């Protein structure tokens, strides 16, 4: 009988010590090389999803990449977007003016911060053909701080600085 209790206790101990997957900060931040590689792969996958959503002019999927929380910070050059709702509206309005778009990246680098947080930086080029036949070309750097929230990585802080190449 005592052995059964002992076995149950050990099982409970192992199960309870599984790493947390929600976005709340934890006191644990030790990472193995394997953990880091997994984070890098997952983060690059999410940025690929974002790029695809942007290029497909998919408003909902683009906005879904950002955490829908009061803690979201989005900065573009010298402007701050106040919240997720405004951001989703801006994405929708911008996509409605675009006929086709091509977002591409160079020198992407992921800085693994913890098991459930990371920062990605990269140089981007954005070329769009607008519905009024004008062309828009932007080039610059992006910093994205991502947090894993219930098994999904979301953009928690997004900072973009760019120059208009021509329009």
């Amino acid at each position, binding site marked *: 009988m*005592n*052995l059964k*209790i*002992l076995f149950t*206790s*050990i099982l*409970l*101990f192992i199960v*309870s*010590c599984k790493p*947390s997957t929600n976005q*709340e*900060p*934890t*006191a*644990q*931040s030790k990472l193995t090389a394997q953990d880091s590689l997994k984070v890098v792969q997952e983060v690059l996958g999410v940025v690929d999803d974002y790029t695809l959503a942007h290029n497909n002019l998919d408003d909902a999927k683009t906005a879904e990449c950002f955490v829908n929380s009061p*803690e979201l*910070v989005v*900065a*573009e*050059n*010298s*402007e*701050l977007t106040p919240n997720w709702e405004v951001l989703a509206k801006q994405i929708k309005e911008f996509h409605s003016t675009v006929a086709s778009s091509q977002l591409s990246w160079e020198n992407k*680098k992921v*800085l693994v*911060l*913890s098991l*459930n*947080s990371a*920062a990605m*930086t990269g*140089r981007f080029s954005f070329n769009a053909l607008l519905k009024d036949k004008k062309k828009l070309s932007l080039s*610059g*750097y992006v*910093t994205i*701080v991502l*947090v894993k929230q219930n098994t999904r990585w979301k953009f*928690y*802080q997004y*900072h*973009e*600085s*760019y*120059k208009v190449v021509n329009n």
Partner: protein
Amino acid sequence: MKSKLLLLVLSAFIVSCTQKQELTQKEKDQIKSEVKSAVDNILAKFEKLDPSLVSECYWDSQDFIEISVDGSKADFQTSKKGTSDFLSAAASIKLALTQEDYKCLSKDIVVCAWMGKEKITLKTGEAITISPLITTLIFKNIEGRWKAIYLHESGTETILPAGKK
């Protein structure tokens, strides 16, 4: 004997689970306060034109990244030299914060966003205003000290020639 073993396992369970608890609001507030002091220290060193700024406040690592308002990207050594050159060319720097935000991602990682303005007067008499200036900083607690491991600045720059205010 079995009872003692059971007690030992249960104690280990309680201790290990306590260690992995999420940070309390009090702990988060304490961490944010420490990082705010680190940010204030960076701003003060800028205003004092103190060349020790980068070596004391930034992370001396190959992973350090700085993206400046002019769109350039620098590693630690480039940032150290660039900042030193910039500070020695300046006659004065004034910084003003209008908004700041701190998020604890873990007990040793904090992401900060701040918005404000900066006025730089060069020794040549030219003045540069960056308003608004938005900065993303990532801080890591390294051996008990909060160091900036990542910076991204962007803003609207206005250059006034010497003699104009």
